[in-house]
C-alpha cells in the first residue's frame, strides 16, 4: 500500500485534512486533463438539527474521478473526529465519455467494503461533453476556523502555479433573509503551460512573495537573496521520472530593529514542501536529504529538525538574529498519475541535489553569503588586513606608488583616503575569499602547497552519490 497519501491522512488531527487529500486528487485530475481547468474549494455554512455545520466541497473540471482514489481513505476512530464528522463523503463525477454524472455516497465508517459505497441516481448530461468531480463532506466546525486553515493552505498553493488550472476559494451561506450568498475569497491563476523553466521560476517568485508577506513587520524588502536548484531523474524501472525543485532564500532583517521584538518562533524556520503541486507534509526522504547536507560548507550549523504537526522546522546554531534561511522544496512527477499509489516515493538523493544546487546558486551570485565556516573565519581577518595594506600604501613616501595602487583598486585619486582605500581592499579580500570558497567546493582536491607546516584541515566533501540517470543543475542552465 502506498504510504504517502495515507500519511497525509494521519499527520493532522483536523479532519480538514480529508479535504487536503481531496484537493490533492483534484489537482492531479486537472493536470491529467491537460486543458484549462477550474478547481474550486467552497465552504458553505448551514445548520442541521440546531448544529452549525460547514460543507466543504472540492470541485474540479478535470478528468473524471476513479473509485480507487478513495479506497485508501480510512476513518480514524477518535473522539474529536467522531464529534466533527460522520464519515460520509458525497461524490459526483463524470468523465468526458460518460453519458451521465455518477452520484455516490461513501460511508467511511463502514468497514465492509460492499457497504461503503452507496449508489445514488445518476444525473443526465443530455449529450453535453464535459468532465469533472465534486466531492463534499460536512463538518461540525466554525466557518471562521476552517476558512483560516483553508486560506493558509491555499496561500501556499500560490507558490506552485499549476499549469492550466485556476483555483478559487468560495464562501457561502445564508444571509439574514435566508437566501444563499456566495463570495469569492481567493483566486489563483495557474501558469499557461508546463515548462521546467517556468515551473522553478514560479516557485522562486511565489516563495519570495511568501517570505516577504510573512515578515512585513520587519520590513526586509530588498534584502532577500535567492538561489534555485532543480534535480531530475530521467525515469527508472519504477516508471515515473521525478523532478525536485528547491528554492533557498536568505532574508536579512534591518539591523536597527530591536532584537527583543524577535519572537522565539522566528528562530525556527519552516521548510515548505510540495508534492505534485500541492502543499504537503514533508516526506521522510526530504528530511533525510536536509540532514545529510554538509551545512558547514555554507557556514551553517543545523541544530535540529523538528516536526510540528507535519510542518518541518529547522533550527540553526549561532545564526545572527537578523538572519533567516527559508527553504521550499517541490517534488513532482512529470507524468501525472491519477492514482497516487502509482507514484514512487520521492528520492532522497534528488532532494539533496536540488537543495545543494540552490545553496550553491545562492552562494555563486551573492558574494558574502553562505561562506563556509572556514571562509568566515578568514573573513574576520579581512578588516585588519585591509587597514594595514591601506596604511602600507598611503604611508609610503612614494606618491607614484600610491597612485598606482589606487588606480589598480579602481579608486579615483580625489577619493583617496585611509577609509576608502581600506574599505575597497576589504571588499576585494572578502570577494576573493568567497571565490576561493566556492572553487574549493567545486574541486575535490585542495590546492597543494610545497611545504605544509600546519595540519591540513580535511574538508568534509560529502560524496555526491551520482547515479547514471540523474542530473542536477540550477535553473539558469536550462
Amino acid at each position, binding site marked *: 500500500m502506498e504510504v504517502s497519501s495515507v500519511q497525509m491522512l494521519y499527520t493532522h488531527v483536523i479532519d480538514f485534512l480529508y479535504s487536503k487529500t481531496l484537493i490533492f486528487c483534484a489537482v492531479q485530475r486537472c493536470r491529467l486533463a491537460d486543458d484549462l481547468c477550474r478547481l474550486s474549494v467552497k465552504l458553505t455554512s448551514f445548520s442541521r438539527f440546531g448544529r452549525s455545520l460547514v460543507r466543504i466541497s472540492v470541485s474540479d473540471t478535470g478528468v473524471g474521478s476513479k473509485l480507487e482514489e478513495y479506497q485508501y481513505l480510512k476513518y480514524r476512530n477518535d473522539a474529536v473526529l467522531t464529534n466533527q464528522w460522520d464519515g460520509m463523503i458525497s461524490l459526483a463525477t463524470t468523465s468526458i465519455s460518460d453519458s451521465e454524472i455518477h452520484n455516490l455516497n461513501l460511508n467511511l465508517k463502514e468497514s465492509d467494503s460492499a457497504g461503503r459505497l452507496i449508489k445514488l441516481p445518476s444525473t443526465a448530461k443530455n449529450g453535453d461533453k464535459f468532465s469533472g468531480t465534486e466531492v463534499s463532506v460536512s463538518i461540525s466546525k466554525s466557518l471562521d476556523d476552517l476558512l483560516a486553515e483553508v486560506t493558509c493552505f491555499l496561500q501556499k498553493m500560490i507558490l506552485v502555479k499549476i499549469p492550466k488550472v485556476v483555483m478559487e476559494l468560495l464562501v457561502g451561506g445564508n444571509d439574514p433573509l435566508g437566501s444563499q450568498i456566495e463570495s469569492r475569497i481567493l483566486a489563483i491563476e495557474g501558469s499557461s503551460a508546463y515548462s521546467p523553466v517556468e515551473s522553478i521560476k514560479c516557485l522562486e517568485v511565489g516563495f519570495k512573495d511568501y517570505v516577504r508577506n510573512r515578515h512585513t513587520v520587519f520590513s526586509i524588502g530588498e534584502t532577500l537573496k535567492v538561489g534555485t536548484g532543480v534535480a531530475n531523474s530521467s525515469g527508472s524501472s519504477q516508471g515515473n521520472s521525478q523532478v525536485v525543485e528547491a528554492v533557498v532564500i536568505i532574508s536579512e532583517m534591518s539591523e536597527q530593529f530591536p532584537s527583543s521584538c524577535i519572537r522565539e518562533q522566528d528562530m525556527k524556520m519552516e521548510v515548505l514542501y510540495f508534492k505534485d503541486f500541492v502543499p504537503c507534509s514533508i516526506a521522510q526522504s526530504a528530511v533525510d536529504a536536509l540532514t545529510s547536507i554538509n551545512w558547514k560548507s555554507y557556514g551553517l550549523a543545523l541544530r535540529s529538525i523538528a516536526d510540528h504537526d507535519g510542518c518541518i522546522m529547522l533550527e540553526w546554531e549561532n545564526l545572527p538574529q537578523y538572519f533567516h534561511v527559508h527553504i521550499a522544496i517541490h517534488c513532482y512527477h512529470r507524468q501525472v498519475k491519477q492514482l497516487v499509489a502509482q507514484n514512487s516515493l520521492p528520492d532522497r538523493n534528488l532532494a539533496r541535489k536540488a537543495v545543494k544546487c540552490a545553496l550553491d546558486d545562492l552562494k555563486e551570485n551573492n558574494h558574502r553569503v553562505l561562506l563556509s565556516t*572556514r571562509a568566515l*573565519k*578568514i573573513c574576520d*581577518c579581512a578588516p*585588519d*588586513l585591509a587597514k*594595514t*595594506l591601506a*596604511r*602600507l*600604501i598611503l*604611508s*609610503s*613616501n*612614494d606618491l607614484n*606608488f600610491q597612485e*598606482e*595602487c589606487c588606480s*589598480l*583598486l*579602481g579608486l579615483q585619486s580625489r577619493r583617496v583616503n585611509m577609509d576608502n582605500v581600506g574599505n575597497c*581592499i576589504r571588499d*576585494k*579580500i572578502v*570577494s*576573493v*575569499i568567497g*571565490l*576561493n570558497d566556492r572553487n*574549493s567546493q567545486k574541486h575535490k582536491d585542495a*590546492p597543494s*602547497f*610545497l*611545504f605544509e*607546516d*600546519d595540519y591540513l*584541515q580535511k574538508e568534509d566533501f560529502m560524496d555526491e552519490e551520482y547515479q547514471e540517470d540523474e542530473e542536477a543543475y540550477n535553473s539558469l542552465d536550462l
Partner: protein
Amino acid sequence: MEGKRSNTQPLTLLRKIKGFTGSIVEDLARGRAPTIYIDRFKNYCTDTSGNCSCSSDGSTGREAISLKRECHARRIDVLLRVLLIIQQLLQESRHGSKRDIYYMHPTVFKEPSVVDRAINDICILLQCSRHNLNVVSVGNGLVMGWLRYVESGRKIDCISNPNTAYPIPVHVEEVDDIISVAQYVLVVEKESVFHRLANDQFGKRNRCIVITGRGYPDVPTRRFLRLLVDKLHLPVYCLVDCDPYGFDILTTYKFGSLQMAYDAKFLRVCEIQWLGVFIQDCDNYSIPQQCLLPLTAEDKRKVEAMLLRCYLQREVPKWRFELELLLHKGVKFEIEALSVHSLTFLSHEYLPSKIQSGGYI
C-alpha cells in the same frame, strides 16, 4: 666597516617593500588570492646519511602562505603589520627593537616570538639581515683586550684597560677602524668566566681579545666576532662548559642558529676552534670526582638530539666524538671546576698551556 651588501641599502629595501605591497594589491584587484612564498633555510637537519643540502647556503624549500587558510591569514596580518612598521623605520631613518614593535600591537601579536618570526620572514623576503631593516637587536655581549675601534664616530680604546669589560656594540655596521695587536680571540661562554679572567689580569699577561655572549650569543655578539675575524684574521678559541648547553653554544658560534639560518652566512664563525673544557681534562688536569655532576635525563635527550645534526659528522667529526664521549661517561662539569686547584688556575695554567700546546680541535 662590516661588509655592506649593495642590495640592503634602505632605498633598495623600501623599493622591495613597495614591490611586495604592490603585488598583493594587484592580486586582490584581479580577484586572485595573494600567495606569499617564503624560502626556508636550515643550517642542519637530522639526516645523517650525508646526502642533505644543508652545507650549501641555499634555501631548502619554499613555504607558501595565502588567504585560503585561516592560520595563514593571521600570519599574513602579523607580517604586514611588522612590514608597515619597518617601512616607517626605514623612511624616517629611525631604529626600533623587536620589543618596541611587539608593544605596538600586543593583542594581535600575542607574544614577542611571533614578531621574531615575522621579522625573519621579512628578512628572507627582502633578502637582507635584521639590522638592514633598522630593527635593533638587544646587545648583551662583552669584550676586553688588545683592541681599539671606532663606533659611530666614538673611539673605543680597550687597549688602555685590557682587563676592563666594554659592551659589544649593537650597531655593528657602525664599527670602523679596527686596530689590534692581539694574537688570538678567546670566546668564553659565561660572564662569570669573563670576569674571572679580568680579575686575574689575563689581558695583561696575554695579548688577546676576550669576548663573551653571556650564554647563547646574540646577533650583535656574533656579528662583532665575525667582523673581528674578517678584519684581523686571528685564530679564535672557544671555552665552554663541558655539558650539552656548552656544546650547543659552541655550535651556535660555529654554524649559526636554526632560527637565523637564513642569515647564517653572515653570523657564523667557521674558524672557531674548541679549546675546552673536555671530558679528558678531568684526568689531564686532575679534577676530583666531586666536581663532576651526572647528566640528567634531559641532558641526555639533548645530547642525543644534537648527535643527529648532519654538520657534526660532515664538518667536525672530532667534536662529535667528544660529544659521544660525554654521553658515554654520563657526567658533566663546569669551567669553574678548574678552580679546585686555585682561583688563578684557569688564567695562569689551563688556558696558556692549552693554547700553546695546541690542545684545541
